């Protein structure tokens, strides 16, 4: 028998039982659809994250932390007790001179109330030097431009925050005045009277200071200004930041050390080092660690992240496999029913010269065709589910100012793999019915009805 005849026979035989073929194939469509959409979701999330990290050059970053308290209390050499290294401007200067370092800046974030057009929103403010703002953040600007100098009394605000304030057109806010109100932990407010007022809910032990800035730019999405994927909605240059009274939120330690008062050298709790390429990550880390600091690079975590994604993929795969298994049972059921119905026909086939191999192939092709159709339409269903969920999710997220994100990714290997997998599963489901068909005894099948 010719290959084209097997295919034609399969389609015409399946077309004879349209409803049953449709229902069986539909089972496969749902299974493959679930598989495709789940895999596409896993891929989409993974792609989104790695692409975003790459776009934001997070893999080119190294974070530097001061030694922990424990490390500080254990000097390396007893003869020469070392002064605990401090993350200060001197160190930033030293780091900047290392080969491959583009810039190094202290990671400073603090909470503030942002007041614009009579509306207030609580947000995280990040201090970002002008040069970093120009090189990194400028790509993400939808309106305006990065601030020109470290001392400019300007800021960049995110579109998400504007959305939160019901401001739709980002361009209109450029040049407008915005008020940042910072909180400062005030030890004086810890008087018994103040505590009593806190207890009554009248007052909090923070003092509030307000500063006015001019908006020069609007960032497209929630900005990852530094090397940590922490959302900041407002970016200001270091100059005005130094003059502001605030509590930094980079580490909880700052919260308490802020109370220590001025004059006490405490350094920064974190410095972000931007490199020109990921290849400098290891040498820079080495150098900085030699100076007695701790480091963190996201690229080192990539393997862990990938492993986590594999687990997520496996979980999604397991869920989809349940649907596939049910679909396979449907195929087995349909094929066995078909064989029972076509029992006599199989006898006729054999009487006119079909070998067991021909009979097997005919039924095998029918299973394969169910798998093929199920795969194609399942892929379409999975894609459609992805599109619908994407639209719905983005519709609601857009209201909160989150820019459009594709949560589903359909790489070519997923599309081809889904159809191939569907065919393989269907063929596997067809093995038993096929063997059963080949075993039909023509004498019994053709016995007078």
């Amino acid at each position, binding site marked *: *028998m*010719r290959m*084209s*005849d097997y295919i*034609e*026979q399969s389609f015409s035989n399946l077309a*004879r039982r349209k409803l049953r073929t449709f229902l069986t194939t539909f089972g496969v469509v749902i299974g493959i659809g679930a598989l495709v959409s789940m895999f596409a979701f896993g891929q989409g999330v993974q792609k989104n994250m790695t692409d975003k990290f790459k776009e934001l050059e997070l893999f080119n970053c190294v974070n530097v932390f001061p030694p922990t308290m424990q490390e500080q209390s254990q000097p390396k050499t007893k003869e020469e007790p070392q002064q605990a290294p401090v993350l200060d401007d001197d160190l930033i200067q030293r780091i900047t001179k290392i080969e491959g370092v583009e810039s190094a800046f202290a990671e400073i974030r603090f909470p503030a109330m942002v007041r614009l057009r009579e509306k207030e929103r609580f947000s995280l403010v990040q201090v970002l030097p002008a040069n970093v703002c120009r090189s990194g953040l400028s790509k993400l600007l939808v309106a305006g431009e990065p601030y020109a100098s470290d001392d400019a009394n300007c800021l960049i605000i995110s579109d998400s925050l504007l959305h939160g304030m019901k401001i739709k057109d980002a361009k209109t806010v450029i040049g407008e005045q915005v008020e940042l109100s910072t909180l400062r932990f005030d030890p004086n407010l810890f008087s018994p009277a103040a505590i009593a007022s806190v207890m009554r809910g009248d007052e909090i032990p923070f003092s509030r200071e307000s500063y006015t800035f001019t908006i020069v730019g609007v960032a497209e999405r929630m900005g990852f200004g530094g090397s940590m994927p922490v959302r900041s909605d407002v970016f200001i240059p270091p100059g005005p930041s130094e003059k502001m009274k605030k509590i930094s939120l980079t580490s909880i330690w700052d919260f308490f050390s802020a109370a220590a008062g001025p004059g006490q050298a405490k350094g920064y709790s974190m410095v972000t080092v931007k490199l020109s390429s990921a290849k400098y990550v290891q040498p820079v880390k080495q150098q900085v660690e030699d100076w007695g600091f701790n480091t963190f690079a996201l690229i080192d975590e990539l393997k862990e992240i990938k492993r986590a994604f594999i687990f997520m993929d496996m979980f999604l795969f397991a869920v989809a496999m349940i649907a596939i298994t049910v679909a396979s049972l449907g195929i087995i059921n349909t094929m066995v029913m078909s064989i029972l119905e076509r029992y*006599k*026909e199989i*006898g*006729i*086939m*054999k*009487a*006119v*010269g*079909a*070998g*067991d*191999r*021909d009979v097997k192939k005919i039924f095998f092709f029918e299973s394969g065709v169910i798998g093929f159709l199920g795969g194609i339409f399942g892929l379409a269903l999975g894609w459609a589910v992805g599109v619908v969920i994407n639209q719905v999710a983005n519709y609601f997220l857009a209201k909160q100012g989150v820019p459009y994100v594709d949560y589903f990714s359909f790489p070519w290997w997923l599309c081809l793999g889904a159809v191939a997998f569907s065919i393989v599963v269907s063929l596997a489901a067809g093995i038993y019915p096929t063997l059963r068909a080949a075993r039909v005894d*023509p*004498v019994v099948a*053709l016995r*007078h*009805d």
Partner: protein
Amino acid sequence: MNCASFVQTEGLTKVYSSGKIQLCALKDVNLTLAEGKFLGVTGPSGSGKSTLVNLLGGLDTPSSGRIKVQGRDICELNKEELAIYRRYQVGMIFQSFNLIPSYTALENVAFPLLFAGVAKRERNQRAAEMLTRVGLYPRKDHRPAELSGGEQQRAAIARALVNQPKILLADEPTGNLDSITAKEIVKTLADLNRNQGVTIIMISHEELLLQEFAHEVIRLRDGEIVDREKLR
């Protein structure tokens, strides 16, 4: 090859086992048939007629004995070789016609050519020729349900002969037909035998038809040949 032993059986025996019960359907049947002959097989129900035809047609295998067709022992063939034997060497027709209900007459006739690997266009062409030969071409697009019993059997004959086999095995081809149609069908078979030299082995209860058209008639009872009659 000896023309006198075109089809030959030696000690052909078929025993069906069902649990502890053994049923001997055919007992030591020795038969020799020359090429181009028309053999009638008759006998009461359960005498082993259909078993004989199924064995000769390669649909079943004997418990013991030999079947030689054109000098070749078909009992030694494996399953796939038997399929090829059924495809090219023998054609079979049945009492209940055994046409595929969802196929048209033309598709039914072309069906065996599918397994012979013949291209679709040629399949249809050859099937149309066969239908013309049995006088059914005008009904080629009709499904079995739309054909009369005689027409269905003629379609079945066309299907049996489409691969140009040398032997035609007919298992009570007239059993479901009225007497006039039955005679027409047997006449068609006799014409094929006479004009194209197709060797025919036909089971029938109708002695008169056999007497009229067959060269030789054998009578079976309880799986054994009890009588042979040479008619012409």
